[in-house]
């Protein structure tokens, strides 16, 4: 059977362009589109004549019904071959269960980190390039204990990401002898964080862990704590890592620490430069978004088919060793290697390593803010 | 002629209520419009003041065609109107009501307010009360007083005496006579038709939207047909 290939391959890019994380998603989408552009420019994808087209759709991040409708449109009307997305865990689950699975479409989410997604039945269609919160919690606890922080206050964004991460941090931290003085949520996009900061400040602690987003409530909490002189050290998990934060807060943030998925590969740095030259920031989850799109396309190449049912079995192959390591900006190399029948190990911007049911294994980079810059303090 | 309304037709959306009616009076005269309920008296008044669009006909004020100008401009020309219902600012105090009545005037508002208080002592008593809490008759007085605040040359009253006690009603008619003597013309609608016609120079009987009779007040009062069917015998 000859694959009919004179139509373009389409990738759906479902993120919440409107709604609570609307300020993160443009960069995420651009990162995915960057990967697509790279593959298109290589001119080698599948038969060589095929162009890949990315189609955006709005998940709204919170409204499952609207997200399903958008996904339904992508899949059944635009007939996308696979989906990069969705972003928030709730809508991701909903799209997966209601639309993607029934149509047999592969989804690779860059930012759905809810542990629940690990165990959800998915017919092998769902992957993610961000690690589950359960894993990060452990890392955070390790770092804190090692650095000698025995008491910490914890503020988390009140959604599945924040809460899941907070619970995991708390469990691990306490089992290692740490004490969480208070674990209080904050809502994103609200008017004022005075009350939260007050409560956190009164509970006290050596450090404040902020499991939120860097340009949302998370930032508000940090700013407020600094202003009131409540805390001067912060722990920043992955949602809080990005250049804009030290830039916005200034020197007060120096000395704070954090963690973000990644290994000591040159990928992240390369990606940052790539992003810059393409006119966007390497914000939170944009690395993962790039990788999600890249993985799909590489898997297509490896499967020699653009169909979800074929490519789903190749995602793990291209993502993991053995094979030649592929970094951001090297997608065309990856494609040609695959074409030659060689194996590749996609590392990408966020050091992709998929385990189990298509999860990111979760290698973490330990971060230290120094002189207003994010620097790497080590790897785990 | 201070006011000359010729052959006007008007009404609401698609129903014509008043058809081909004439109203007119000279400076310093008092004119009354009487007629059964629903005859279109209030409708005609509103149309004359420009609160309703005219279907046909013209309104002349001091020989000037004012058929199409806005109500607030008519106020500037010296007309003043007390509607039948909804004729006070409910949520404002009595005094503020009067101040608003004198809105267009630059000077002399305070003095006029004092004069009005003299005329309606009850209003002075209640000057800081929210108008909504006035009794029915007090409201009527306030509404009338508000219209006087503009120092009008032409006053239109829609049932000024409804709900006021006899003693005040006498005062009211006296006052109307008095101001007409000062050269202010008054056009009013009244159900207390006998009293009204008694002081009117001219009367219009309106029935089902049409002019039934136009005559001097005295003649109408003595007309048996009018008495029987419009003035309650």
């Amino acid at each position, binding site marked *: 059977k000859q694959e009919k290939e004179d139509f373009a391959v389409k990738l759906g890019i479902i993120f919440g362009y409107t709604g609570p994380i609307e300020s993160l998603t443009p960069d995420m989408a651009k990162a995915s589109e960057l990967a697509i552009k790279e593959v298109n420019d290589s001119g080698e994808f599948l038969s060589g004549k095929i162009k890949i087209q990315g189609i955006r759709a709005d998940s709204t991040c919170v409204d499952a019904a609207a997200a399903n409708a958008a996904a339904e449109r992508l899949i059944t009307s635009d007939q996308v071959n696979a989906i990069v997305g969705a972003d928030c865990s709730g809508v991701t689950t909903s799209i997966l269960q209601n639309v993607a699975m029934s149509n047999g479409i592969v989804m690779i989410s860059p930012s759905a980190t809810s542990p629940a997604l690990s165990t959800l039945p998915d017919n092998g269609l769902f992957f993610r390039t961000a690690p589950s919160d359960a894993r990060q919690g452990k890392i955070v606890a390790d770092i804190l204990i090692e650095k000698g922080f025995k008491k910490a206050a914890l503020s988390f964004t009140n959604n599945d990401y924040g809460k899941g991460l907070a619970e995991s941090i708390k469990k691990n931290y306490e089992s290692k002898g740490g004490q969480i003085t208070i674990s209080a949520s904050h809502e994103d996009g609200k008017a004022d964080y005075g009350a939260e900061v007050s409560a956190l400040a009164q509970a006290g602690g050596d450090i404040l862990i902020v499991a939120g987003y860097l340009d949302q409530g998370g930032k508000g909490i940090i700013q407020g704590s600094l202003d009131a002189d409540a805390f001067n050290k912060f722990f920043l998990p992955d949602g809080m890592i990005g250049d804009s934060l030290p830039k916005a807060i200034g020197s007060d943030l120096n000395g704070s620490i954090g963690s973000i998925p990644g290994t000591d590969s040159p990928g992240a740095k390369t990606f940052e430069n790539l992003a810059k030259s393409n006119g966007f920031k390497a914000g939170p989850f944009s690395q993962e978004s790039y990788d999600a799109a890249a993985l799909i396309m590489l898997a297509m190449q490896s499967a020699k088919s653009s169909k979800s049912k074929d490519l789903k079995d190749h995602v793990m192959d291209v993502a993991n060793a053995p094979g030649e390591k592929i970094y951001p900006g090297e997608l065309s190399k990856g494609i040609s290697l695959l074409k030659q029948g060689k194996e590749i190990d996609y590392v990408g911007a966020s050091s992709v390593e998929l385990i189990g049911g298509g999860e990111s294994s979760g290698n973490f980079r330990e971060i230290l803010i120094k002189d207003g810059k994010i620097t790497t303090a080590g790897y785990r | 002629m201070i006011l000359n309304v010729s052959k006007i037709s008007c009404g609401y959306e698609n129903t014509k209520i008043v058809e081909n009616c004439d109203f007119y009076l000279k400076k310093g005269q008092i004119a009354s419009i009487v007629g059964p309920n629903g005859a279109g008296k209030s409708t005609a008044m509103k149309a004359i003041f420009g609160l309703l669009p005219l279907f046909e006909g013209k309104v002349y004020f001091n020989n000037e065609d004012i058929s199409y100008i806005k109500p607030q401009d008519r106020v500037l020309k010296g007309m003043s109107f007390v509607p039948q219902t909804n004729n006070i600012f409910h949520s404002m105090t009595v005094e503020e009501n009067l101040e608003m009545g004198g809105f267009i005037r630059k000077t002399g508002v305070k003095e006029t307010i004092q004069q009005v208080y003299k005329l309606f002592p009850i209003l002075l008593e209640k000057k800081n009360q929210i108008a909504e809490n006035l009794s029915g008759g007090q409201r009527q007085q306030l509404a009338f007083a508000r219209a006087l605040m503009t120092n009008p040359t032409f006053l239109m009253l829609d049932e000024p005496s409804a709900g006021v*006690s*006899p003693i005040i009603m006498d005062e009211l008619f006296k006052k109307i006579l008095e101001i007409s003597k000062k050269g202010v013309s008054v056009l009013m609608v009244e159900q207390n038709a006998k009293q009204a016609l008694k002081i009117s120079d001219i009367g219009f009987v309106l029935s089902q939207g049409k002019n039934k009779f136009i005559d001097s007040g005295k003649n109408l009062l003595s007309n048996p047909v009018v008495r029987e069917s419009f003035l*309650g015998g």
Partner: protein
Amino acid sequence: MLQIFNISKSFGGIKALNNVSLEIEKGKITALIGPNGAGKTTLFNVINGSLKPDNGTINLNKLNITGLEPHELFAMGVLRTFQISQEFESLTVLDNLMMVPADQLGESILNSWIKPKEIEIQEKKILRKAKEVIKFLNLEKLSSEYAGNLSGGQKKLLELGRTMMVNPQIVLLDEVGAGVNKTLLKKIGDTIIRLNKEFNYTFVMIEHDLDFIARLCSPIVVMAEGSILEIGDIDQIRKNNKVIEVYLGKGN
């Protein structure tokens, strides 16, 4: 039948009612007159439950009814009209009347499902009655007009019409005559007399038209500044100097 003991009501500093005691006898047409702001409407509001008195009690047929809600009093047969018309503006004239009768089967959601037949029959009866009333008030042409679109006088008539939809024990009429054409008012007077004679309705009416009162009412209660000034028949009232001073004026 209606006994009012020592009712007081004040609004802020204003004593609208000051220890008012009054007895309304069954089967009579009592008039309530007095200068503007005497507290007449306030008294009605207190009787019908729209306002709670500061103190005092009201008995209806020896039953204490102080502080009951208006709808409870309606059920006991106390009916009123409003000085400033309170029509249901987006209902037609017909519906304005048809909504009045109490205990309509169709007002219960359950019934409208299980007893559609009975409701239909009842509706027909009410409709017939409403049409009669409309005819009496000369409003036939307007029966399917929105009540909000009526003229000032017509609204007053509708107020009156609503009291004619049911068989009340006592009707409180607040200036039905104001703004109503005198010819029609005469007819209304006839009806009130008829209702009073034939069906033994009790009326209390606030009115400023003395001729009208003279024809209909006895006794006449005069109020001033929140208390009762005089009770008597028309001649007594006309002769009373105090009444002349505060209310009637020299001319009447």
